[in-house]
């Protein structure tokens, strides 16, 4: 991403907030901001960046929004929506001076709005990337490998849903804020994951999603420096992304953690992530992102795979299991126990999971079982489980990896 594009993206949420504060009409304002960003990306390279880029974008966005509001279709929409809006007077009282309203709460308000509970996760992600991240529909569609028309529909539908839910541009009440913050962090985590799990053989756009997710979480952290889970999520992303250069081979094949070339890991990201999570654990309220980051830090700070402190990882999974009821956490816990105490103990942890409905026909359960059976010397059983896992996964690189594990056991 060029510095220039970064500048525009950083302005996007502030410009949008200013327009929504002044005019209301989140959906049309969002449209107008995209057009202002487009105008800037066409004009600034030739004419130079204006002295006050945000002011410039707000002016152009305002003009465009006024046009949109005047247009026939917008008038129709206004009439339709007048009936749906909980508090229409919100939108007729112009706010104070339009130029410099962008403040800390506005970006948060925008995030809460984009991650509204009325939306599906896929819609929350798309809207967050566009309204807060400043990405174009084309960029988001490319990153998620769907046609641009599909993504455009998803985004406009999401904006309609928010409107229908009667949401206004203000922070949710204190009582709801924790839950809503959880949704925001989860969406940012999903954006990161989408980028991180993309194998190197696919679109470059996907890798950009990890960068974008980290940028957005850094932004939230600036606003909420004392929130341990925000720090934990940022640390988790940094510590995970640090391994990206080593996680895939030249042909996009997956390389397991134990076999990665650790000299390829991003040291700076590890140092920053480690410091972040240590600080959060020491002085804030404990939460699942911090614990996951702490586990990632134990892996990342081990010189060699054999130096991994599995005891500490087991202890951290014990803590995590008390915080979240997630079968994937229990699967990882079983692996850690096997590494610390031996495969028999690991298989004992796995036992109750075999009857967990949430893991029925889940390939990760088969893969973990295969791994532990292989450690315990049950070669035939391991081979069978690897093959089953390879048939159940929908990921090409995972299938190839699991298949090769099975092949080696003949």
């Amino acid at each position, binding site marked *: 991403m060029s510095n220039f594009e970064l500048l525009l993206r950083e302005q996007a949420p502030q410009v949008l907030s200013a327009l929504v504060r002044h005019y209301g009409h989140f959906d049309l304002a969002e449209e107008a901001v995209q057009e202002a960003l487009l105008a800037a990306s066409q004009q600034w390279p030739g004419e130079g960046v204006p002295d006050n880029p945000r002011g410039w974008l707000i002016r152009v966005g305002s003009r465009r929004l006024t046009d949109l509001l005047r247009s026939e279709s917008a008038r129709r929409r206004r009439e339709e929506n007048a009936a749906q809006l909980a508090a229409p007077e919100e939108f007729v009282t112009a706010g104070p001076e339009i130029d410099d309203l962008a403040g800390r709460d506005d970006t948060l308000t925008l995030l809460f709005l984009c991650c509204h509970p009325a939306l599906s996760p896929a819609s929350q992600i798309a809207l967050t990337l566009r309204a807060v991240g400043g990405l174009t529909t084309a960029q988001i569609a490319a990153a998620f490998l769907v046609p641009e028309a*599909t993504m455009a529909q*998803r985004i406009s*539908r999401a904006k309609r849903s928010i409107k229908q839910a009667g949401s206004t541009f203000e922070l949710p009440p204190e009582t709801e804020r924790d839950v809503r913050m959880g949704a925001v962090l989860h969406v940012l985590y999903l954006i990161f994951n*989408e980028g991180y799990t993309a194998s190197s053989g696919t679109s470059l756009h*996907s890798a950009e999603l990890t960068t974008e997710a980290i940028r957005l979480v850094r932004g939230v952290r600036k606003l909420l420096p004392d929130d341990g889970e925000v720090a934990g999520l940022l640390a988790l992303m940094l510590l995970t992304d640090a391994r990206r250069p080593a996680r895939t081979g030249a042909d996009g094949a997956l390389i397991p953690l134990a076999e990665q070339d650790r000299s390829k890991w991003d040291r700076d990201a590890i140092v920053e992530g480690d410091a972040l999570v240590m600080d959060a654990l020491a002085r804030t309220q404990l939460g699942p992102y911090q614990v996951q980051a702490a586990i990632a830090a134990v892996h990342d700070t081990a010189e060699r795979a054999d130096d991994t402190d599995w005891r500490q990882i087991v202890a951290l999974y014990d803590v995590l299991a008390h915080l979240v009821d997630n079968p994937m956490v229990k699967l990882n816990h079983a692996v850690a126990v096997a590494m610390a105490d031996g495969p028999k103990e690991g298989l004992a942890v796995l036992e109750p999971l075999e009857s967990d409905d949430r893991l029925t026909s889940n390939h990760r359960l088969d893969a973990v079982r295969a791994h532990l059976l292989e450690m315990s010397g049950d070669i035939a059983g391991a081979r069978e489980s690897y093959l089953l896992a390879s048939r159940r996964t*929908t990921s*090409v690189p995972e299938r190839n*990896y699991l298949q090769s594990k099975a092949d080696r056991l003949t």
Partner: protein
Amino acid sequence: MLLIYSNPESWASLSAEQREGLSRAHQSLGQELIEKGQFVSGAGLADPITTRTVQVHDETMSVTDGPYAEAKEHLAGFYLIECDDVDQAIAYAARMPDAEYVAVEVRPVMDMSGLEM
């Protein structure tokens, strides 16, 4: 991926009304999927009578008329859609009259994203 199956007998036995209902159902389902931003692609396939089967043996290509598989049922169309989970895909499949006449298969699509084990 939703794979719609049909067979010549069941198709022939439909009344004009049922055939119209079938196309209406697909039109409205397709429209809904597009509006929701879940539609990726889809098509109805021409009658199996139009099928050509291509095979290459010893670097020589042969083309024969008719389907490859000797089966009563044939693939009549498909939808590629993006769903939150398999249950949502199953619910869409169940809304197709084809599920009532023959069957609709729901299958995940492979992708290139993976987690290190």
